[in-house]
């Protein structure tokens, strides 16, 4: 039955090459930890993606309870943390995942750097990687405000002041982020929520797609 459905779709859309492309490619020995234990350093990129997937899933579940307004944001997080079944675990995974994804990304960057894998022809993938790096830091920064507790507001205040000190466009960046030139409040929270949940994840998914398509085009770099 399933085979028939598959054949029916495949006959019309030729979907086989799409998944065969992912399934069929060969993985060389020098990146396979089953053959050389030291090859675990090649796992860091995959683990970064793994945590990213967990971040997206746990974040989706968090938004089922979270309310992005200054009256209820903290209360909704408190409720999620203390009342909702497994809420503490879901929030905990999102909280610790935010740090783990940065750790894994640091390690992946160092691996690519010290194995010289960014060299021709992979320059563009390195540049996209650095952009992913910046996007992840942005996600960390915007996510820090959302619980609307003391450290969230005051750390964000400092961050926005730093952004405001950029010459010429500083004030403009500040208003874009905070929603106002003086107040850090309701407007700031909704903006950070939108940036954290829609803008940056959209950018991240686009960049990740580019990152992975380039890896498939170029293959993984050879042994040292």
């Amino acid at each position: 039955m399933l085979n028939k459905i598959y054949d029916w779709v495949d006959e019309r859309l030729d979907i086989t090459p799409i998944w065969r492309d992912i399934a069929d490619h060969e993985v060389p020995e020098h990146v396979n930890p089953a053959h050389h234990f030291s090859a675990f350093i090649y796992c860091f990129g995959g683990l970064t993606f793994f945590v990213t997937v967990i971040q997206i899933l746990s974040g989706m579940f968090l938004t089922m309870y979270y309310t992005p307004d200054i009256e209820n944001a903290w209360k909704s997080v408190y409720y999620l943390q203390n009342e909702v079944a497994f809420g503490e675990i879901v929030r905990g995974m999102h909280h610790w995942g935010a740090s783990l994804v940065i750790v894994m990304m640091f390690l992946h960057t160092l691996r690519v750097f010290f194995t010289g894998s960014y060299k021709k022809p992979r320059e563009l993938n390195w540049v996209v990687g650095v952009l992913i790096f910046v996007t992840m830091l942005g996600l960390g920064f915007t996510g820090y405000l959302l619980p609307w507790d003391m450290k969230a507001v005051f750390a964000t205040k400092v961050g926005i002041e730093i952004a405001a000190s950029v010459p010429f466009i500083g004030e403009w960046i500040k208003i874009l982020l905070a929603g106002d030139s003086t107040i850090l409040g309701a407007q700031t929270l909704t903006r950070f929520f939108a940036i954290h949940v829609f803008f940056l994840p959209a950018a991240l998914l686009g960049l990740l797609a580019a990152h992975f398509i380039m890896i498939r085009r170029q293959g993984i770099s050879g042994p040292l």
Partner: protein
Amino acid sequence: MHRGKGMKFVGDSRIKAENKMPNVPKDYSEYPGKTEAFWPNFLLKEWMVGAVFLVGYLILTVAHPSPLERQADPTDTTYVPLPDWYFLSMYQLLKYEFASGPFNIVGALVMPGIAIGALMLVPFMDTTKERRPFKRPLPTAFMLLAFAAMFYLTWESVANHDWEKAKAQGEIREEVSFDPESEGYKIYAGASCIGCHGDAFEGGLGMPLADTGLTAEEITEIAKNGRGEMPGGTFKGTEEELHTLSEFISGLSTE
């Protein structure tokens, strides 16, 4: 054109066997050793690594519940903030003389900008064919230097932060139940007490006033003579008012 599952591929599946394109599959035959298929062989091994990682991740999550401080009060100017750990090196940089005050731009923009910019341009600066780290000493040295600098700045930031105070200033405080219409609260709000002890007795410059365990006499004594950082004689009302106030504060609890 043949479509469907019966289609033959050569090595890399994007190239069809009957195609007229030159068949140059991207396999790894130029590399020594055993290659294996991504699906399902290698993916299974990756999943094993992922599962081990996930166990550690979940243990961390269960052992350390994620922190939540009390609800934001933007008027509390005494709060000393700290960003998440991965921003600490940049934050620490702003505390040095050459990168703060009139040179704020150096710490806020120039140095992080150089770091990110240099990172992005690495492939265009290090253009030799050599890949081994020891065969290209300059890039390796610069990366180690940058890593050491970030590590040092983060270390300094953590070492110089008062963690005890940070914990206390963010703690969730139980709400004090009281009647804002009561005479005691009216006296409290009318006097200077409210400035330091907060409009809901949550404390601020002064200590929180609920569950003090002090008797009314002791509170009268403290209001008159002061204690610790609190100066004496700040209450300007009558003896009778002070008595009412002391009784009121002595009875405050978070229950």
